[in-house]
């Protein structure tokens, strides 16, 4: 049993009980889901940001000052996110914000961010988030146009499978992913033999599995949001005798999904922006995180870790905490090796353009390769 939310609150409490040297710090805001159904992810995000912050401060801080984290709970709702951002923007001295990971929340807050004009690092993968004409939004993860291209590329060119079934959740993440994957397959000259949506928290995937069988697909590409859905789908896929290949979005390799699905995910591939043994940087991060929190890290913490370090670097490069200068600093980051990959920011705010491909075997995630795109 874990008193998860208590940990989140304790973390928030500790972080906000700022040391008396508060005056001479650079304040970075962070908006997390600290209460509500996704509170556990919120804890991980805070963990990652905190780890980076402590590292940076231990090395002397930025521009001679210590970094300070200002967390704000968005209660996992859209209006809550808007209010959280507003609150942070209203506080003096916040120079940047690390935002949430959920695309709809980011969409909701986008006008507020644009109005305030403060650089914000987000973790949402919906491609449109950086196309919304908001020059203050920067993405700390590769967006779904890339995850879909990696899935398509790996499935078609490496696994050599051309009869695709796309199974996706009907929420924003799933629909967006489905659209992106369809487009990526089209670019490779392939039309999927099946596109099947389902509502989150379906209790039974039999109709979906039967549809997959009927379509004759030899490979399945998925964008599934919730772990229980992954678990039930995977099990029923095996029970009904489907042996097609499967390359899915990063939700497959969440700790919970693997726990729930068990051996049904053996041999299944996934794309992931964070994999512990993908690179030297990710290995180092994994070790540090484990030492600090006694837990395995996942994408919820890793992206925040990178985001914090990017902000620190940008401020350092710009030698200023003015918003415009920080913005220039971020865009100036090219070829920098983070935990999630190598960042080269473009003017739209995207820094990563590729994903790892991994394979799940007996509960272990094995790194296969990294696929990057230039554009």
């Amino acid at each position: 049993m874990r008193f998860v939310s208590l940990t989140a609150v304790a973390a928030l409490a500790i972080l906000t009980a700022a040391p008396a040297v508060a005056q001479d710090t650079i304040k970075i805001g962070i908006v997390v889901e600290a209460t509500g159904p996704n509170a556990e992810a919120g804890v991980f995000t805070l963990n990652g940001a905190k780890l980076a912050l402590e590292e940076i401060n231990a090395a002397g801080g930025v521009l001679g000052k210590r970094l300070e984290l200002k967390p704000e709970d968005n209660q996992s709702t859209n209006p809550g996110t808007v209010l959280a951002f507003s609150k942070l923007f209203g506080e003096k001295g916040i120079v940047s914000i690390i935002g949430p990971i959920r695309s709809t929340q980011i969409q909701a807050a986008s006008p507020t961010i644009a109005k305030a004009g403060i650089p914000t690092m987000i973790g949402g993968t919906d491609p449109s988030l950086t196309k919304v004409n908001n020059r203050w939004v920067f993405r700390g993860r590769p967006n779904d146009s890339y995850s879909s291209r990696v899935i398509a590329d790996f499935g078609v060119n490496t696994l050599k499978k051309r009869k695709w079934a796309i199974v996706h959740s009907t929420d924003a993440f799933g629909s967006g992913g489905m659209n992106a994957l369809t487009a990526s397959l089209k670019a490779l000259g392939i039309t999927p033999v099946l596109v099947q949506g389902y509502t989150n928290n379906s209790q039974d995937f039999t109709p979906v599995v039967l549809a997959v069988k009927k379509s004759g697909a030899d490979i399945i590409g998925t964008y599934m949001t919730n772990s229980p859905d992954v678990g039930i789908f995977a099990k029923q896929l095996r029970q009904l005798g489907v042996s097609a290949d499967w390359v899915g979005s990063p939700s497959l390799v969440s700790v919970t999904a693997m726990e729930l699905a068990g051996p049904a995910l053996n041999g299944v591939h996934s794309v992931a922006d964070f994999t512990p043994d993908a690179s030297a940087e990710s290995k180092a991060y994994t070790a540090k995180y484990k030492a600090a929190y006694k837990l395995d890290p996942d994408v919820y913490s890793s992206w925040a870790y990178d985001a914090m370090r990017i902000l620190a670097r940008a401020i350092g490069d710009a030698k200023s905490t003015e918003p415009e200068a920080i913005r220039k600093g971020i865009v100036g980051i090219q070829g920098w090796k983070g935990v999630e990959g190598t960042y080269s920011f473009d003017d739209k705010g995207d820094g990563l353009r590729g994903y790892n491909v991994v394979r799940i075997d007996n509960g272990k995630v094995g790194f296969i390769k990294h696929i990057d795109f230039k554009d």
Partner: protein
Amino acid sequence: MPPKISRPWLVALAIVAIALPLIPYRFEVSAYVVQMFMQAVTYAIAVLGLVVVLGYTGQINLAQAAFFGLGAYGVALGTVTGGWSFWLSLAAGAAVATGAGLALGLTTIRLGGHYLAMITISFQQILDLVLVNWIEVTRGPDGVAGIPRPSLAGFELADDRAYLVFCAAVLYVVVFAVWWLPHTRLGRAMRSVRENELAAEVVGVHTLRTKVVAFSLSALLGAIGGGLYAGGFAYISPDNFNFARSVEFLTAVLLGGAQSPFGGVIGTLLIVQMPEWLKHLPESLRFIKDVYLAVYGIGVILIMVFLPEGIWGLIKAARARLARPADTTDTSGVAPLDFDVPGAAGGPVLRVKALSKHFGGLKAVDGIDIEVARGSVHALIGPNGSGKTTSLNVVSGIYRPTAGQVMLGEEDVSLLRPHQRAGRGMGRTFQNIRLFSTLSALENVMVGAQRDRNPIGRGNRALRARAMSALAFVGLADRAHVIVRNLPYGHQRLVEIARVLAGHPRLLLLDEPAAGLNQTEKMEFVDLLRRLRGHGLTIFLIDHDMGLVEKVSDRITVLNFGRKIAEGSPQEVLRNPDVIAAYLGTAGKVN
């Protein structure tokens, strides 16, 4: 009458109300606070819809978030996809929502209570699924971004503070309207439906129409709130309009007090602000934030047990205790009750022909014929289970006859709803008194005066005058403003009579009118009946007290096992051996 507010309070209230939304102009208030209040104000408008449908009319509505969503999507899709003006889009969203509310209200023709809860939940869930999956129209889970602010008289409300002032103004208008509503004809009808729907129907309230209007109003207010919310936050997505939000609205209205618009506003402020306030707790108490949601659940239970009228109910009770004693009612100038019953000539007022009512295999009423002569008192007696009350219920329209006819005067009313019969001059009282317990005596009687085609003026003044006259007739004019549940039993009976008299009846159906009265009260009651007959009313009554029946009736019909076994003058009937056998089981002499 709407509660009197003294002049100084009114002025103070007005000043505060105008000043509050203008604070951000004078003082440095963060955008965060302004936005928080924007959320609270738009939610409050929706919650006021629940005050109308749940607080006033007593109908459960677990789909308020769906209506909120329809308004929001109306504005969003209209402005962003359709390029329409904000106002047109808001009107469109409101129209769709009101239509949906109307449809849901119509379902109450068959169902109430749990069923209604389920229907509203189903509607909520289906709408949620449609918003998410009908991507071509609603843009699905991505939601709709870029919703523009409206322009008011050429002035664009882009500034959050200006928009807040605008929303606050709308809220005030709505609060006023909702505050005024209970004291209108419609409002009284709603409250009567809440208190006792069957009595309301019988007394002449078009209960179905009242419930439909209540639902439609609730939906309309929900949509207005939703439309303003969309304009305020510029981005909406389906996850803000789901069942959880409906439950939140419901808890807000219960917490604040469902029976008052002020309660609705208080409740909304608390529910919206609570999570934000909790953020400011000192560290030692921070854990409350997690358990707050769990406590919220317990809070709902506690409110139901201890605070059924919410926080506003507490405030009202405190005020009542501190207030001066109620003004004594000025009973001078009350006109005597005008009966206006057409003259004694003419055929029977009530005719029942070959009437039957079967419940499955049980023949409660099995082919009876009765004629009630104009201006007479006609009693229906019989042992328990003989079908008396069932007959009365068929006559008043609560049951549909299985066969046969009910004629009121020359008109066949067999298939008319009870309120329609009341509209034709049929009045009825109940064996177990069915008054509207939280309304005053005057308000109870006014509902009776509200029946369709009552030959008095329209408008509250005429209704009041009529009601006061009726109360004076039964001798209770000085208790007009007492809440009826505080009246002694005998007086409650009299109020019930006054209520039915206020409707200018030509036929009075009385179901055991003397039940529960002591001997003195019975004597007074006999006098009352005689006075009524003297004014030309026709009375058809059921009772068990043979002494009373004998004194008061011109004619008696006796039923046994659903059939008529005797009919005639009291002397004839009460000595009839069949009648005696029916009651006592054996033939025998009567002393």
